[in-house]
């Protein structure tokens, strides 16, 4: 199940450039995304859109990131989906990002499974895979800088499925910077 989603996600990342039209532009952003605010994490985002942002506010996006739950686990994740941008005046905007393609992998420091007979064997790269769709809501503020065009911040929700038979929402708070676009 997890490998299926991982393949889908990798496929989306690889074919993303094909979605754009001839005048496609790309953007990158980097964010501190703290789980519950204080568990540290970083994310990098990749955006591709065919027309200028103001004419086509819906763009393709993908993200790769991690956060650390101290004493418990390291978590790696990736999403892909669409982002909608609503302008709030000339300098500011509000983004809604929905990523139905998502995968999440937790990594434990050390884990053992107990065998019949009572001995335990160590597990290599222990952790769990989850299907993990994501959504986020951020406010962006334009900056007058050659390399960085905006600062944004807002919450991000990641949903881990199946978690103890149900879904576990994870809350991250993002503070990030968008780098200036480049044509490709």
């Amino acid at each position, binding site marked *: 199940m997890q490998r299926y989603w991982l393949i889908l996600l990798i496929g989306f990342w690889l074919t993303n450039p094909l979605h754009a039209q001839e005048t496609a532009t790309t953007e990158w952003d980097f964010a501190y995304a703290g789980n*519950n605010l204080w568990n540290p994490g970083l994310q990098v985002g990749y955006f591709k859109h065919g027309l200028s942002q103001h004419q086509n506010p819906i763009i393709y996006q993908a993200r790769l990131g991690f956060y650390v739950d101290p004493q418990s686990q*390291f978590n790696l994740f990736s999403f892909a989906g669409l982002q909608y941008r609503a302008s709030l005046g000339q300098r500011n905007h509000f983004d809604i990002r929905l990523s139905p393609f998502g995968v999440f992998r937790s990594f434990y420091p*050390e884990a053992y499974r107990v065998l019949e007979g009572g001995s335990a064997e160590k597990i290599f790269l222990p952790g769990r895979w989850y299907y993990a769709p994501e959504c986020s809501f951020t406010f962006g503020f334009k900056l007058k800088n050659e390399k960085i065009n905006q600062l944004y911040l807002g919450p991000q929700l990641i949903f881990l499925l199946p*978690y*103890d*038979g149900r879904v576990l929402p*994870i809350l991250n708070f993002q503070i990030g910077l968008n780098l200036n676009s480049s044509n490709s």
Partner: protein
Amino acid sequence: MRVLPYAMIILLSLVLACGQSDLSQINETIYLRHNGADMPAYIHGNGSKKVFIIILHGGGSFGLAFRSAAIQEELESRYAVVYWDQRAQSMSQSNQSSDDFSVAQRAEDVGALISLLKTKYGDDSKLFLMGHSWGGTLGTTYLLQPGAQEQLHGWIMADGAYDFPLIVDERYQMLLRVSEDAVPNANPLLEQVWIRLNTDLKSLNQDSIQSNPDLLSPFVVDALKLLQQDDELLPPDNTGVYQSAILQNNPLYWWLNDRRNRPYLDARDDGYALRERLPEISIPSLFLWGRFDFSVPPILGEIALAEQGSTDKTLVILEQSEHLPYLSEPAVFLEEVIAFVERLK
């Protein structure tokens, strides 16, 4: 951009490479994978003597909730303490549904944890099991499994809920008794409040209490408030616990898991009872109970002392505590635990 993958690999390696060979100060997180669940055990303290105290947390709680400042100072300086998140609690993870979270499965997990500790730290490790409240239920269930008692040097039960029908009956009787006994010595301002509490209790239908134990909850809350106002109860000292709950544990995982998985309520509703099997337990045992524990009345400690099959068993009542004696009277609580462990290790 090229730096990012390498940075993530380095960070991952640092997180994974958390093992250490110096047992005098252990600070490790080890996950137990057993029957579909991954359950973390946070091990802190002095492992140089290879004495481990495994804590089975209570209902709605989590392993690190026990890691108060007093326990860090008194227990971890002497022994290694294992703070373990049980199946479907706090940071534990699985892909199972709640149908698989039976008491028997959870007790089996305790055995698996013990096997893990012996594999990692050696068969010569001296293990003590300490269960609080629901952890008492779990520990007692585990001890009744074949071969379980031989794995341990001692059993410490603090306010252990090993018989749920008995708890409900005794809670009502205890509320009546405490409210009657309080009146002669009560603060004059509180005397009438105690009398009213007692009168309201007597008006309850006892049959309806057994079918709906939550009827007593408001009376318990009121009684505890009155006892505190009357200076009969010491408030819990949570120093270190909030830090564990919020910064070292993930509160969202804890809260959601507790909302969706409450084995102690399932056990209560199923009438889970182990009193009749207490004579089968012969391991050296220490029972610690809060005198004003309405959640698990101290008469269960007296019954355990009388009926458990151990010849080496002691009951200590902490006179100014309710359900959390390790937080209300940590000095007395830990003194008893240390004396017990030192004698048997």
